[in-house]
């Protein structure tokens, strides 16, 4: 009997330890980045582009990368939405009676969701070569769009599925068209759409492998789709690779910027999801 009680207490302790490790790792990581990056943070970092010699220690900031990332993530999200909203609606509202097929399609998107970004980057690269596009803003947007489509479709699909059948079908019997019904459904899940946008943007802004081959890099803010664009993760990567301590430090500061941006996006999306669920129930 004593052995059983001991076993119970032992594993309870082990469990608490494991939870501390798992949850604690979040604080460890954010804390380390804060610790290393804060000293090098300055207003310049977010308002200036790299000056000459930035990578060997001269002045400047990472505005080029910040804007570049926003352009690419934003462009990809917009393009992705244009494609994903119709797809999500089609699966849910136009495929009546073809249960099996729509579930297969969902599974395809789930699988696409699991494909790593390096594969999307490589494929995006192939597309660019095929169409003769150089490493540029356009290339980056294409690759990242492919990356975020599964995220958007999945999220939108889940949101639409929370709208009760009755609401979806009731209006049909009143004679409205499916498209008008779709518009109603979309309005219903507005916070859900915001969540999807946030999730997609957050993923896109932090990803490296998809923009590695496709967006190029530049110290300047791109003014056209055909110019190469810097991205924040790559900027971090390059700064860290420099032997100059000052530059490395700025790399940590850039990492801090990226972390903060993505964390804020994640927190916002959690809040939106909660708000959405509250109305649903």
């Amino acid at each position, binding site marked *: 009997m004593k052995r*059983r009680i001991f*076993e*119970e207490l032992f*594993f*309870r302790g*082990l*469990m*608490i330890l494991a*939870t501390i*490790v*798992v*949850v604690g*790792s*979040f604080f460890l*990581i*954010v804390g*380390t*980045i804060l610790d*290393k990056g804060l000293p090098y943070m300055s207003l310049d970092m977010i308002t200036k582009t790299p000056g000459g010699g930035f990578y060997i220690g001269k002045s400047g900031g990472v505005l080029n990368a910040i804007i570049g990332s926003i352009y690419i993530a934003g462009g990809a999200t917009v393009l992705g939405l244009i*494609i*994903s909203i*119709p*797809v999500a609606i*089609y699966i849910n509202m*136009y495929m009546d009676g073809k249960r099996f097929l729509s579930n297969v399609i969902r*599974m*395809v998107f*789930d*699988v*696409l969701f*699991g*494909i*790593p*970004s*390096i594969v*999307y980057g*490589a*494929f995006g*690269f*192939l597309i660019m070569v095929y169409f003769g596009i150089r490493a540029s803003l356009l290339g980056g947007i294409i690759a990242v769009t492919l990356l975020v489509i599964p995220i958007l479709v999945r999220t939108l699909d889940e949101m639409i599925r929370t709208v009760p059948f009755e609401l979806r079908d009731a209006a049909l019997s009143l004679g409205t068209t499916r498209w008008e019904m779709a518009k109603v459904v979309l309005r219903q899940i507005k916070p859900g759409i915001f969540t999807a946008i946030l999730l997609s943007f*957050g993923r896109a802004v*932090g*990803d*490296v*492998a998809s923009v*590695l*081959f496709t967006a190029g890099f530049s110290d300047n803010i791109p003014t056209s789709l055909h110019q190469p664009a810097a991205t924040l*993760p790559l900027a*971090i*990567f390059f700064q*860290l690779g420099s032997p100059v301590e000052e530059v490395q430090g700025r*790399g*940590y500061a850039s*990492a801090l910027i990226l*972390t903060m941006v*993505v*964390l804020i996006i*994640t*927190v916002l999306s*959690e809040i939106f999801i909660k708000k959405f669920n509250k109305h649903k129930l």
Partner: protein
Amino acid sequence: MLVFTLASVSLLLFIGIGLYLHSVPILHKLSLGSLLTSTVWKPLKGLFGFAPFIMGTLWVTCISIIIALPLCLLTAVYITEYAPTRIKRVLSPFVNLLSGIPPVIFGVWGVLFIIPLIQNHIAPHFVDFSTGYSVLAGGIVLAIMIFPLIVSITSEVLKTIPQDLRDASLSLGATKWETTRKIVLRKALPGIIAAIVLAISRAFGETIAVLMVCGNNAAVPHSVFDPGYPLPALIANNYGEMMSIPMYDSALMFAALLLFLIILLFNLVSRIILARLERKLAA
């Protein structure tokens, strides 16, 4: 609408076909067997043996699963079965936040924290010298990246097990841990396996974080302290030289194809298991 749907679904096919078409040149030149098993990687001489990279990927992934699995199972069990409601509500969001951190940040953290840790505190107990850049570092960083995945899927599966089943075991005089170990985990096993398979596929494909800490040395690792060179890192590091060396681009596309197929397989298997579980519950 239909067009968009069809197009997006066939994306999967296009990716596979595209990668395959570009791998054809190298598949013609060297047999599949030698590509997969040769350990010699000298692109300038036209020698492309992928074994070091495949092994590198395997080492890093295995280490990450070995670290993550017990920690995540214990955490998931604690959060769903033991933790008081207040604590549960505080803990869960942080596990989710972990999944939001971009991979490159994990890489930066790995360089700042894990590398010195291994170099100065762990390795000296075992080997003469290590720079810290090793498959162990890659495994640790990767493990933390897959924490949220395993914890969340396992938690979901545990929540579906009816309380009455636990009550049945408790009524027979079993302790809570005995009930968890013998009944709950057994019932949750298919779901846990699905979570592991999904986590493996995630680990296989992770590029930047592992690239920054694992040393990028094209040799088969023989110990956890050896550097490694996983497939994604191979592709990411060398895309610049792709076009200048003959066959190199095809080789890298082949690497991407390999990744794609393996991950596709694992993803499918895992999704099918999870779908079956869902159906059983609804029944």
